[in-house]
C-alpha cells in the first residue's frame, strides 16, 4: 500500500518538525568542542556552510539530529550544537532509519565519507535510499580514507598510489551519484565544498524533500589527496567543466555558455557545442522526471576525471517514504483494533483449572 492509498497528505521534509520564530544564527549551531580537522581540510567549509544554512530552516534546534559513521568527516556531529550520534563505521543510515521511523518530529541528517558510505556501509546506503526513509545523507567525498591515513577508497581514481597500493589501486571507482540513482534515490544532488551558494541551495532543497535525500559533496583532503577537485575550483577550468543543473533551464555551460547537453543514441545524453546542437535541441533540465534513466544519464556525463561535472540537483521526485508508511500502518492497526493486552495474552483457546 502506498501513502496515496492510505490517503496521506503530501508532506514536505520538515512539515512534522516543530518550527521556531526565534531568530537563529550560525553560532547557535556551534558546539563548544574544538574542531580538530587538519588545517585547510574541506570539512571546515562544509561545517561553516551547514551552520549558516540551518538557521534559515527555522527549526527548533533540539529537533535536529546528526548521525554519522566513522571517518574524519564523521566527527561532524561533535561540532554541532544539536543532538548527535557518532556511531560506528558505515552504519549511520541504519541507526538513522530507526530514529527517523520512530520520531517524525526530528530532522535527521547523516554525515558520512566515501569509505563509510560506499565501502563498509554500502549495503545500508542502497537500502536506505531504496526505502526512501525521511533522512538526509551527506557524503563527504574526498576520494580517500582520511582517518586511517590515506588508503585508497571506493571513489579513488584507478591507479591511485597509496600506502596500501604502492603499485597503484586496481578497482574501478564508483560514481556515487549513479550509485544512488541506481538505488532508486528520490533526491540526488552534488555540490563542491568551497561553493557555499551551490551547496546551500542543494542542502535547502534536500531538507525540504520528504524522503531520503542524497548529497555528494566533493571535499578536499589536503593531507592525503590534496587537490583532487582543484580543476573545479580554478575559475577558468571550472567554467569548462562544471555543468550547473537548474530546473526548467536548458543545460549549458562554458565561459560563454557555448556548450550544452543534448540527447544521444541509446537514450543517453552527451555534451556538445551549442552551435552544433542548436538551442532547440538542448535538454531542459527536469529533476522531477520519475524515470531514473534521465538523471542517470546526466550522472554519466560526469566522469571520474572531472572533465564534465554536473552539479546541483539531479533528481527530486515524490515517492512514499518508508517511515511515513510504517507509522501509518501502526496507526491504522491501532484504529482497526484498540490495543488490549489482557485480550492478547489470553488469546482464543484457553482452559480453566478451578
Amino acid at each position, binding site marked *: 500500500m502506498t501513502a496515496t492509498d492510505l490517503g496521506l497528505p503530501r508532506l514536505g521534509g520538515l512539515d512534522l518538525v516543530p518550527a521556531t520564530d526565534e531568530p537563529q544564527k550560525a553560532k547557535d549551531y556551534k558546539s563548544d568542542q574544538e574542531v580538530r580537522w587538519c588545517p585547510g581540510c574541506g570539512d571546515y567549509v562544509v561545517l561553516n556552510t551547514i551552520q549558516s544554512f540551518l538557521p534559515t530552516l527555522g527549526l527548533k534546534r533540539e529537533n535536529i539530529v546528526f548521525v554519522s559513521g566513522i571517518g574524519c568527516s564523521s566527527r561532524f556531529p561533535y561540532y554541532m550544537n544539536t543532538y548527535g550520534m557518532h556511531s560506528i563505521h558505515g552504519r549511520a543510515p541504519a541507526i538513522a532509519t530507526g530514529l527517523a521511523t520512530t520520531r517524525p518530529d526530528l530532522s535527521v541528517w547523516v554525515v558520512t565519507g566515501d569509505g563509510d558510505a560506499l565501502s563498509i556501509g554500502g549495503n545500508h546506503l542502497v537500502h536506505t535510499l531504496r526505502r526512501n526513509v525521511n533522512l538526509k545523507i551527506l557524503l563527504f567525498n574526498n576520494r580517500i580514507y582520511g582517518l586511517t591515513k590515506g588508503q585508497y577508497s571506493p571513489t579513488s581514481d584507478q591507479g591511485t598510489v597509496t600506502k596500501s597500493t604502492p603499485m597503484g589501486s586496481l578497482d574501478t571507482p564508483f560514481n556515487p551519484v549513479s550509485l544512488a540513482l541506481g538505488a532508486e534515490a528520490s533526491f540526488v544532488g552534488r555540490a563542491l565544498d568551497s561553493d557555499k551558494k551551490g551547496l546551500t541551495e542543494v542542502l535547502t532543497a534536500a531538507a525540504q524533500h520528504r524522503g531520503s535525500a542524497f548529497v555528494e559533496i566533493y571535499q578536499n583532503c589536503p593531507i592525503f589527496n590534496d587537490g583532487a577537485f582543484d580543476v573545479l575550483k580554478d575559475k577558468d577550468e571550472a567554467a569548462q567543466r562544471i555543468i550547473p543543473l537548474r530546473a526548467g533551464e536548458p543545460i549549458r555551460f562554458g565561459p560563454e555558455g557555448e556548450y550544452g547537453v543534448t540527447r544521444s543514441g541509446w537514450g543517453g545524453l552527451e555534451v556538445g557545442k551549442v552551435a552544433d546542437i542548436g538551442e532547440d535541441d538542448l535538454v531542459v533540465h527536469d529533476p522531477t522526471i520519475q524515470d531514473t534513466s534521465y538523471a542517470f544519464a546526466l550522472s554519466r556525463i560526469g566522469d571520474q576525471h572531472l572533465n564534465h561535472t554536473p552539479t546541483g540537483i539531479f533528481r527530486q521526485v515524490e515517492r512514499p517514504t518508508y517511515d511515513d508508511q510504517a507509522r501509518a500502518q501502526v496507526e491504522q492497526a491501532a484504529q482497526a483494533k484498540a490495543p488490549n493486552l489482557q485480550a492478547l*495474552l489470553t488469546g482464543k*483457546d484457553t482452559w480453566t483449572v478451578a
Partner: protein
Amino acid sequence: MSTSANGSGTGALSATRPTEVSQLDRVVIRFAGDSGDGMQLTGDRFTSEAAAFGNDLATLPNFPAEIRAPQGTIPGVSSFQVHFADYDILTPGDRPDVLVAMNPAALKANLGDVPHGGTVIVNTDEFSKRNLTKVGYDADPLGDDSLSAYEVHRVAMSTLTQGALADTGLGKKDAERCKNMFALGLLSWMYHRPTEGTERFLREKFAKKPDIAEANILAFRAGWNYGETTESFATTFEVAPAKLEQGTYRQITGNTALAYGIVAAGQLAKLPILLGTYPITPASDILHELSKHKNFGVTTFQAEDEIAGIGAALGAAYGGALGVTSTSGPGIALKSETIGLGVMTELPLIVIDVQRGGPSTGLPTKTEQADLLQAMFGRNSESPVPIIAPCSPADCFDAALEATRIALTYRTPVLLLSDGAIANGSEPWLIPDVGTLPDLSVVFATEPNAPDGSGEHWPYVRDPETLAREWAVPGTPGLQHRIGGLEKADGKGNISYDPDNHDKMVRLRQAKIDGIDVPDLTVDDPSGGEARVLALGWGSSYGPIGAAARRVRKKGLPIAQAHLRHLNPFPANLGEVLSRYDTVVVPEMNLGQLAMLLRAKYLVDINSYTKIAGLPFKAEELEGVFTDIITSTKEVAR
C-alpha cells in the same frame, strides 16, 4: 479440582463401541512423517486438544533445515513429539510411547527411540518397494518379525483417506494429502481427546477454501471412525486433566511468549517499540508474531541485514523508544559491534538470541546453548552486558519483562538467550493478570543536569544508585548533546583520550553491570538440606534437569536443584550456594561454558556434564549422570 475446556460440548464425534479404557498418568506421542506430510500441524493440533482437555503438556518439534528435503528420505523426516500428563511435567519426554510413522523413513529414523513394548502405528500405503529401498530397508519391516518387540498397528491411511474423500470431487492427490488429519483423528479417538477445537481450527484455517476445510474434517472424522469401528484397537486410553495451579491457561510456544513479553514490556513501559531484525531460524517467528501487533505501537523493521536491524533498534532507543533486535547465533556475531556501541552510549536495548546448533550455519533447526560465552564476551574490549535466559517456553514472557526492566533501569543492552527447544516447544501457560505485571515506566531527562550549575546538560552524569546515565532524547529543549563510540569524559561526556578517565570509565561500565539488582538464587531440595550434590543449570535444560532430579529423588537419593536465570551478573548468593555442596554438577548443551564462568569466578570445582547433539537432554540420561555422581559423592564422603 475440575477443569473445563473453552467451548466444550459433546461434539459430533463420540465413542460408542465398548473398548477397554486404560487410565494413564502420562503419554508421549511422536508424529513422524515426510516434511511435506504436515506432521508439525498434526502435532500442534493434538497438543491443542490435550491443552483444551486440561492436561499438562510439553512439546518438541524436530524438523529438517531444508524446506522440502528429498521426499521419503531420512533427512526429510519431520517429527513432533508431545508429552501430556495428569500432573505437572517438565519435558517433552525422552521416548515416545506411541510412534506414528507415516512412511518407512519416519519409521527408520524414529524407531530407535521407541521403548520395547511401545506402540507403533504405520501408514502401510507408503511401504512400497521403492520407498523401502530409498531408506535402505532390504526387507519390509512390516513383513518380517523386526517389529515384534512393539505393538504394531498397520493402517492404510492414504487409501482410507482417499476412500473417505471419494465423493468430495477432490483429486486423488489432494485427497491423499489429508492423511495427516486421518492420523490425528485416529489418535484423538484412542486418547479420548475433544475434537471440536480441531474442526473449528480447520474451518478457520481454510476459510478461503471451504472445500479443503471440509475434506480435512472428513479425513479427521474418518480416522476417528476407523478406530471406533474396526476393532483393531482393543484399548483406548485416558489421561485425566492435570491438577495444575488454579487459573486460566493457554498453550504457548517460546517464541510467541517472547513476542508477547516484548509487547507487554512496551505497554508497561509506555514506550513505542521498534523491532529491527533480519530473518533467521529459529528466531523469525518473533518477527512474524510482533508484526501482527502493530496496534500496540509496535513497528517491525525487516532490515537488509542483522547489523542494520540492531542499528535501527539502537537509533530508536536513542529517540526514546524500546529498541529490540532478534536473531540467532550467527546474527549475534554480526551485531556485536553495535552491541558495543550500545555499551558505550549506554542506551537501553533488548538483544534476543534464539540459540541454534553451530558453529557457523551449524544446525539451523536444532537446539544448543553454546552462545553463552559469545553473549558474555563476544565483543572487543571490556564491554559487559547483562544476560538473561528463560528456562521454558512460557518463561520467555517473564524473561522479556526482566530483560526490559534491566535495560531501561540501567540503560544498557541486555542479551536474552533463548534456544531452539524453547522457541518452538510449547507448554501450558497460566495467563497472567495484566494488573499484576510490573510497572516498567521510565523517566526521560527534561532539565539540564550539570553538577556545576552551569545549566548545561552532561550526558554522562550517573544515578548514584544504578550508575545509569540519564535518557535525554532528541527534541528535549536545552539538552542537546553528542554521544558516540569514542571514549567519553566521565560526567561531561565530551570525547576524552585521558588515560585515567578511560580507566575510570571502563570500571564504571563494569560496576554498573555488576551492580544490577538480581534476585537471589533459590535452591530446591525436598530432602531438607541432606543433599550433597547440587544440579545447576541455565536455560532450556531446566526441564530435563528437573525431571531427572525427581527421578533420582524417587529412588531415595537426595539432590538439590537450582537454575540460573541471570547469567550476568550472577545472583549475589551464588558463591555461597555453590560452597554448600560437595559436588556441583552442571549439565549444558555446550562444552562447559557456564562451568568455565563458575570456575573462573568462584574458584570452585564443577562437575561439567556436556552434550551437543542438537536435541535437549533426556531426563533418563541425566538421571543416570546424577545417580552416578550422588553415589560416588557418598562414597567419597564416607
